[in-house]
């Protein structure tokens, strides 16, 4: 097994060699950092394994039993050695932890300008919906060089959205939202997989990410037939399901006004304060009276079962857009 160094030339050569691939393509901004850490850990693992095996081999030969009655010397504790091989691995672990944690921390939060795409997993396919309204099944078209945030959920069991080339992965859990983000650095077509066992079709729940230049992407977007944008769909649902009758924009309705509420903290009746994010809104729609707020009676009906995941997300997109100009103007 050749020792792998972080030299891109060596890496490219490995990719080009036929037969056994070693690394997936590096197609996102985080891929190189993850690969570097992986290289380091691989070298560490192979090095220590090699060292232990070598020492064992050497001792096996050097100290092999030559006569039945030979008497080895007594074992004597050697404290400095014990301390050394406790402290050094601990230090190595601390270094690796800090390196990894800083990478993870950096990768955890999407940049503000990220364009948001909805991904809903269901047995056994992936529904993708762009904010402009374009829908895809088992495919995800994205522009190069733009941070993309995927909001993930599931309609049934736990799935997991995994794009090896981008080194990203996140569970799609029913009843809640999770998100991952990436910024593609290479055009091309890359696998995505479901990485959480979900039943018979788990291995078939795979698809392709298509990374296109921004121009090509815009052309694709324009050329693909679509219905309403997510925000438009959400607005339609807001009226269709009667939300507008209670949630009047000027605050005079039976329910609170929802304009500009997204992203703000909301105090609950029991005193705790929650941020109005996607998860909050989803809970408000499906289990409205589990979070009673001051000054309003808990009379909102639940829409659990009446709205599917896609529709809930469209409503949320609409709610996000309410008062957005105002928020954008404040430089948020």
């Amino acid at each position, binding site marked *: 097994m050749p020792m792998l160094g972080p030299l891109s030339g060596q890496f490219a050569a490995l990719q080009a060699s036929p037969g*056994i691939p070693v*690394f*997936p393509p590096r197609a996102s901004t985080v891929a190189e950092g993850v690969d570097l*850490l*992986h290289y380091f*850990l691989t070298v*560490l*693992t192979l090095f*220590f*394994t090699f060292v*232990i095996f070598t*020492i*064992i081999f050497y*001792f*096996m030969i050097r*100290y*092999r*039993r030559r006569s039945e009655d030979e008497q*080895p*010397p007594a*074992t*004597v*504790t050697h404290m400095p050695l*014990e301390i050394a*091989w*406790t402290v050094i*691995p*601990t230090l190595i*672990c601390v270094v*690796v*932890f800090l*390196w*990894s*944690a800083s*990478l*993870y*921390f950096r*990768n955890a939060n999407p940049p503000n300008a990220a364009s948001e795409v909805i991904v809903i997993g269901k047995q056994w396919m992936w529904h993708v919906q762009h904010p402009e309204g374009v829908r895809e099944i088992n495919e995800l078209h994205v522009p190069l060089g733009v941070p993309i945030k995927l909001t993930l959920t599931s309609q049934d*069991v*736990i799935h*997991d959205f995994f794009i*090896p*080339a981008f*080194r*990203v*992965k996140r*569970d799609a*859990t*029913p*009843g809640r939202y*999770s998100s991952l983000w990436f910024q593609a650095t290479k055009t091309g077509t890359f*696998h995505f997989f*479901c*990485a959480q*066992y979900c*039943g*018979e079709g788990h*291995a*078939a729940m795979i698809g392709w990410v298509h990374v296109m230049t921004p121009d090509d992407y815009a052309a694709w977007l324009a050329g693909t037939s679509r219905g309403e944008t997510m925000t438009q769909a959400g607005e339609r649902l807001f009226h269709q399901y009667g939300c507008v009758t209670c949630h009047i924009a000027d605050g005079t309705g039976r329910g609170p006004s929802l304009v500009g509420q997204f992203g703000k903290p909301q105090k609950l009746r029991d005193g705790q304060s929650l941020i109005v994010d996607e998860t909050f809104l989803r809970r408000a729609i499906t289990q409205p009276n589990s979070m009673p707020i001051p000054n309003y009676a808990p009379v909102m009906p639940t829409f659990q*079962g009446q709205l599917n995941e896609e529709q809930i997300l469209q409503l949320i997109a609409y709610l996000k857009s309410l008062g957005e100009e105002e928020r954008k103007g404040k430089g948020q």
Partner: protein
Amino acid sequence: MSAALAEAPPETRVHYLNADYGIKSWLLTTDHKRIALLYLGSVTLMFFVGGAMAVMMRIHLIDPAGALVHPDTFNKLFTMHGVIMIFFFLIPAIPAVLGNFLVPLMVGAKDLAFPRINLLSWYLYIAGASLAVYAMVSGGVDTGWTFYTPYSTSYAHSQVMATALGAFILGFSSILTGLNFIVTIHKMRAPGLTWFRMPLFLWAIYATSIIQILGTPVVATAILLVGLERLFHVGIFDPAVGGDPILFQHLFWFYSHPAVYIMILPPMGVISEIVTCFSRKKVFGYHFVAFSSMAIAVISFLVWGHHMFVTGMSVYAALIFSVLSFLVAIPSAIKVFNWTATLYQGSISYQAPMLYALGFIGLFTMGGLTGLFLASLATDVHLNGTYFIVAHFHYIMVGGAVMAYMGGIHFWWPKITGRMFPDTWARLAAAIVFIGFNLTFFPQFMLGYLGMPRRYATYPAEFQVLNVMSSAGASILGIGYLIPLVYLFWSIRYGPIAPPNPWRATGLEWQTSSPPPTQNFEIPPVVKEEAYAYGPPGSELEDAHD
């Protein structure tokens, strides 16, 4: 090697194997040694059942489109393989076979504290295993051994209840065994056997037993709730009615992470015994190895979240679980270094037990270090749910635990059966296992980083070469496990008679005949030396350094 003690041949001497005959004397025995053999038969059977499933899976995965079975069947194969290997082989094997046999002997007692509960443990094992086998033959279960909700509670149309019940019952077997060992070690040590004179195998069993009694009940709760949910559809884990599927994962992994230490601590204890004996030197850093076992038991309860890094947990929770997961690796590293240092200036011989033990040290090092990739958050995001995980845990469980189990079976075989096994065949089998194992599982690390997810019945064509390599290795590995089955059985009847202490080892179990009499010792022993008194005469009487 020539017998150190004059010894009447086993046929004329009365010992635990021939003290009584007939099926009742076995099925109603309370003799810990006979119960150990009952377990040996059962776990061996389950091992080969689980192994057969593995063989089928590896054959199936030669072809990207699946060569052997329908995807639904493949899903059932990996589920049952996991359930059987984890619950019905790895968790019981060393504690219930070697632990049952050796703990009373090593403490110098006549039996465990609760012999009838020991027998009950075996019957519970059989009940659980029967349910698992029933589930297998009546349609199978396809949830993965991890039973994640809501798939297992609301969507799976397979034998979830039977399997869950089987695992639940097995949990009680495990709890009672652990309870028995703790009480025995606390209360029944022979005069002079202080804690720090105990063999390290006892420390390992003790630490394991603590995990068993504290962790297993929580998975019992998790399984109970899954069963109730399936029966009553009440919504504990169903988000549509307010339940939380992630709660199951927390309850499940709170046990299942410590469980992996139930599976690896006893093997580590075995390694301590073998390495010291075949180097004729006291284990280097006895206290460090003993305390490392306890440290592993404690820290193991604090790291379960590392199985859930991609569920969407808070960054801060993830950081805490990550740092603790790195920490749990340190005691294991300390052990590896101490075992290696034991060889220094030793008098080393290479019979089969030692080959298995040395193989363990190397493969466990590799398997353990690959755990760092998974404790490390940034790499775990990429590697979770892929074949990297599969390779990691097989390196530890097969390259580690199973090799130690094989080493232990061979090491204590003469004590258990009164016969020696043919060492040449044994060494050959050990070498075949080592080679076959690495060929099977090393390619899987590469598959994992490339992105091949686990639990896939079909896969993209570019992963085929590595899959074929892995399957080829598996065929070699299988042969390596079949060979001992043959010669060990053969040795029971035709192997050379074993003296009480064929390896010239220290330890109370070697001070009695092979096989031991039913009451273990003709005269109850009194301990006057430190553990592993291999040093020059007089060097081990004082507790100067350790």
